[in-house]
């Protein structure tokens, strides 16, 4: 029977493709971690980079990445959640809803370099802030908003209607129902989504080249004056991130150990992303379990 033979061949083909993909991913990750292994130490993670000499670290870049991530999330999560609530609970089918949906889709497929240029024009030049942490955070917010909106909308949509009806039947207003019943029920999905988008923000570079800038002034961690250029709390200082640094080291790196620095920084970046991924998985399932009373 010919059709059975074809079926066998096809099955083998699909297994081969899937296996190759997995093997490729595993070797990719192990290669990056192996290459960067010598740099995965406290010294490299905390010390500042050196100019024209061996042994620089990625301390300020790593710190900037984390700070930028936190600020971006502080701005984009409430707005994205709000927009998601609107789309899931209030939006009626019609022109306006269609336009919002089209906007979300357009924004989420926008090349990040274009968003970066928009940030350069609006948050860097027009505001007069120059290359700064805040300009970078606002630019990343533009990138993150559509993702956040979609994640919230999807999570809220998956909350069963019976919960809403139960709340209404007790005399709750729509807003009370949303705040006290719907959003808490959607929380596991929303939190998983936030952590996954955090990974993406953490690794973003193209949108930051011309917004948060490609330089990082030395930071003094005992300086708590937000107006001082060396204070970590200053939102208006240039803030090169880890991802941007990897790019810069490669294109204009002057340190003799540029290659090792890039290897180390890549390994750190990859590890962070893996941690975000695992955290999202673990947190998502444990929140879900707690809510359904399995634990």
């Amino acid at each position, binding site marked *: 029977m010919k*059709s*059975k033979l*074809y*079926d066998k061949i096809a*099955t083998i083909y*699909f297994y081969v*493709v*899937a296996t190759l*993909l*997995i093997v490729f991913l595993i070797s*990719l990750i192990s*290669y990056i971690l192996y*290459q960067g292994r010598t740099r995965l130490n406290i010294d490299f993670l905390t010390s500042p980079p050196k100019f024209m000499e061996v042994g620089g670290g990625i301390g300020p870049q790593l710190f900037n990445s984390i700070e930028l991530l936190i600020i971006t999330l502080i701005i984009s999560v409430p*707005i*994205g959640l*709000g*927009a998601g*609530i*609107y*789309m899931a*609970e*209030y*939006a009626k089918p019609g022109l306006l809803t269609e336009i919002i949906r*089209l*906007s*979300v*889709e*357009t924004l989420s*497929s*926008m*090349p*990040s*370099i*274009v*968003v970066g240029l*928009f940030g350069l*024009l*609006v948050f860097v030049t027009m505001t007069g802030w120059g290359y700064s942490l805040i300009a970078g955070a606002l630019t990343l917010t*533009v990138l993150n*908003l559509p993702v956040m*909106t979609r994640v919230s909308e999807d999570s809220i949509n998956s909350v069963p209607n019976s919960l809403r009806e139960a709340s209404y039947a007790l005399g709750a*207003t*729509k*807003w009370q129902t949303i705040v006290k019943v719907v959003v808490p029920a959607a929380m596991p999905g929303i939190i998983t989504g936030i952590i996954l988008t955090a990974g993406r923000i*953490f*690794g973003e*570079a*193209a949108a930051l080249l*011309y917004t948060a800038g*490609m330089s990082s002034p030395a930071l003094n961690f005992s300086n708590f004056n937000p107006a001082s250029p060396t204070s970590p709390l200053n939102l208006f200082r240039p803030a090169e991130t880890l*991802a941007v640094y*990897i790019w810069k080291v*490669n294109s204009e790196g002057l340190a003799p150990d540029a*290659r090792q620095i890039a*290897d180390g920084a*890549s390994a750190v*970046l990859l590890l962070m*992303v893996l941690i975000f*991924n695992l955290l999202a*998985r673990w947190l998502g399932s444990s929140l879900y379990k707690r809510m359904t009373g399995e634990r």
Partner: protein
Amino acid sequence: MTIDRKYEMARKRQDMAGKVIVFTSAILLIILVISLFYFVASKGLSTFVKDRISLKEFLLSTVWSPDRDIPAVGALPFILGSIFVSVFAIMISGPLGVSSAIFMVEISKKLGQKILQPAIEIFVGIPSVVYGWLGLSVLVPFIGKHFGGLGFSLLAGILVLTIMTLPTITSVSADAIRSLPIEIREASYALGATRWQTIRHVIIPAAKSGILTAIVLGLARAFGEALAVQMVIGNRPVIPKSFLEPMSTITSIITMDMGNTVMGSVWNDALWSLALLLLLISFTFIIIIRLVGRRGMYK
């Protein structure tokens, strides 16, 4: 229960305020898109309005020498570069991505869920500079050594983008295949079809519009990717004549030159025009996806 009038009023106001807040958040998205178009267009059009360069020259000329006394800003090499690198990448990642999606949903659900799905999510999560750095430190020397040339080449760009678009295509087409009703699979098996016959004659045709969406999304991602491509293609403003020659794309030239040019110069304006072109192309992709999606049968 007695009704507290004051509390009822407060509750009503709160209800209204909540609605206004979430509505404003949603409207902000529209405002963002409009201002994005407005600002990029206002800069991007000055090449044609202020600098008097014809649209035809910009789109069809291959001469890019914006730093001369009489600047020439023919962007054709970049446009073609972007098209080559992303279309060839999709030609590889498309079939592979759809195959792995089929594996995940139709061949082995268990392995798919336990291994392939998490793997795909990790693939998506790896930052593009890391892909670029790997391309630069592994792929480029490899190509240089075994195929000749410097290694910085169209081929390197294609391979990097293949890896980067694969997870997008896999996960979107897997979703499309997963959403097909179980009944049509049962119907096919009940008629004595093999699994491969069911996949080929029922599953793939039924998931056609979803798979097409996946391909277009992959293409859009490839077209818009900047740093990973820029790091491996060699950045020479010419149309490559073979897979092994260096080249440029729209995104790579913007990445390279934006920092070196003065705002308001012809050179700078031309880069903004390229950004505008990129914006319009990505918007076109979205429209295509919407049109394709509307033809889906099970939605």
